[in-house]
């Protein structure tokens, strides 16, 4: 009974998980070996008469994100704000925005109430790499300022928890096949020694 339930959950859980695992696995090759030239914008446009929040030179954290989103709605850009920066010397409010398939940089000249919007489309490799890295460890306080990023966070976590279940249930299912125990133990041990070797060497 336990075996049958475990086998079915391993199968159906694995089938649901498989597209997500493929995204994480395939993107590894691009993250490790791919290269793109940054700053090669495909379009640059200037939007005039932008309503700039009055305290934009002082806001920080979530308030700065809210100010950025106010500007994004006016210039027609949607996505996750990476960070915000106010340059006091030039009175420019600058922030990058990204989402799967698009990267943008918005440079607001506060005095002139004009925004320069630079955009770049990203291909499939960059999309999956973007998802692999999201939400990530940087700027935790403002990460998830775009709802789909928070939704992806849930699925990224689910991928991990399901992967843990799939691997543990897989070990149980393998152990039930007596004829494969010896070969399996050899491979499990070989994998353990390989990772211990890598970790020991890289830890020092």
């Amino acid at each position, binding site marked *: 009974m336990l075996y049958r339930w475990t086998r079915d959950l391993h*199968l159906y859980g694995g089938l649901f998980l*498989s597209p997500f695992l493929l995204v994480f*696995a395939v993107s590894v090759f691009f993250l490790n070996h791919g290269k793109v030239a940054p700053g090669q914008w495909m379009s640059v446009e200037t939007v005039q008469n932008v309503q700039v929040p009055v305290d934009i030179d002082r806001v920080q954290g979530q308030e700065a994100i809210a100010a950025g989103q106010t500007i994004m709605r006016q210039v027609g850009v949607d996505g996750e704000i990476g960070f915000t920066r106010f340059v006091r010397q030039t009175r420019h409010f600058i922030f990058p925005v990204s989402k*799967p398939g698009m990267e943008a940089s918005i440079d607001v000249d506060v005095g002139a109430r004009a925004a320069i919007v630079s955009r770049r489309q990203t291909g499939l490799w960059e999309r999956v790499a973007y*998802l692999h890295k999201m939400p990530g460890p940087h700027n935790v306080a403002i990460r998830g300022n775009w709802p789909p990023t928070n939704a992806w966070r849930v699925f990224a976590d689910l991928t991990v928890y399901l992967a843990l279940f799939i*691997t543990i249930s897989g070990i149980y299912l393998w152990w039930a096949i007596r004829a*494969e125990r010896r070969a399996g133990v050899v491979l499990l041990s070989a994998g353990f020694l390989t990772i211990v070797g890598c970790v020991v060497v*890289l830890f020092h």
Partner: protein
Amino acid sequence: MWGVSLSSSTRVLETWNRKLHFYLGLYFVFFLWLFSLTGLMLNHGQWLVSLAANARVETRYDRAIALPVGSTDMDRVRDVMRQLGLVGEIEGVSRQPGSLQFSVNRPSGSSQVKVNLEELHASVQPFENSHLSRFRNLHTFSGSRYNQPASERDWGLTTVWVFAMDAVAAGVVVMILGSYLMWWRLKAKRRLGLVVLLAGVVACGWFVSGWF
């Protein structure tokens, strides 16, 4: 005769596909756990375990060096590293008149080096990471960033680790494709399996497509 042969070869293929599925899974299971747990740590910076991983020990020392030799800045950086006994991935090389700056990174920590080429001494600021931080860094330690075309791997151990990461990724892809074949052979499980797989494809495809 042909039918028997085809059936026999199909059976052999299916047997080996099944074996490959759990052989690859067993070999890579510890790697999968490592990347799963470090992935959680990276995505949840507010967790206590992630906050604990941020601890590091900073020190500083100065040392006299010989004039770095080499025809390029990278050659000179490698010569300085040799003199200081530093190993790891080189990043952020910048050359100003009379000075050379760079950092050397490893999962265990990094060193920021400022070389005064006129007075021939180096100021080194090493950061020693906690064990949890080293563990977390294994997830991202590839020595290359796709949005920085100039970044290259220059430490042998990074290349070994990247090979391991690629092998895990390739193993996962092979296991998944093989699992589709095994599932499809179970006629009784096809319908529900198709529903579950399509749910996964739609949910994942929604994010990859960027249609929001």
